[in-house]
């Protein structure tokens, strides 16, 4: 069975801090690993990672995948209160076709205090 473990489960920081969120996984026939940000309602897509060692970057957020050690990290630099959210890690496997069934971790609840 596919498994996604995120750590820490929750984290409280001050504005301006840098945070690293972790995601380790076990899957047969890996296809991709995705990060989502969930504030109050719908999770919004951040990154999709398929190759090891290639950093994806969007503003103050960046993520990288290590397919040998089976983990990914999400970095947020110079955090702001608007970064407060649940960050979800999910993975997909190759099962034929374009089906994007995701297996999610429990998420990391990030709270950024002013």
């Amino acid at each position, binding site marked *: 069975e596919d498994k996604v473990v995120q750590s820490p489960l929750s984290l409280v920081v001050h504005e301006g801090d840098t945070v690293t969120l972790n995601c380790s996984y076990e899957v047969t026939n890996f296809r*991709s690993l*995705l990060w989502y940000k969930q504030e109050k*309602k*719908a*999770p*919004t*897509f951040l990154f*999709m990672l398929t190759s090891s060692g290639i950093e994806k970057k969007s503003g103050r957020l960046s993520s990288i995948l290590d397919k040998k050690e089976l983990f990914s990290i999400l970095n947020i630099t110079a955090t702001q209160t608007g970064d407060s959210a*649940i960050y*979800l890690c*999910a993975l*997909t496997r190759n099962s034929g*076709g*374009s*089906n*994007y*069934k*995701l*297996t*999610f*971790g*429990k*998420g990391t*609840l990030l709270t950024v205090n002013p």
Partner: protein
Amino acid sequence: SQTIHQWPATLVQPVGSPLSLECTVEGTSNPNLYWYRQAAGRGLQLLFYSVGIGQISSEVPQNLSASRPQDRQFILSSKKLLLSDSGFYLCAWSDPYSPLHFGNGTRLTVT
């Protein structure tokens, strides 16, 4: 551009009553459609997915069912709700060119 609509946003239902949650997608054809539930532990659990009209796959045994009567419409139903059905239900879509995109969710409370 593609949009996904899910309703209602919140719902309070008594135990034993029926349920119907609806989700529609615009701006794409033949999307894959999904129903997820997010319980208090915060992980998202896949309930159903559909790769085409009338094609439904169930991921976990439960008190719920899903239907896809039209290409871009996905419905989650129950004949008799249980207390354990309470949770946050999310509809999502994907196609060969994009990962999952979620609707705004329905918060269901069964009393």
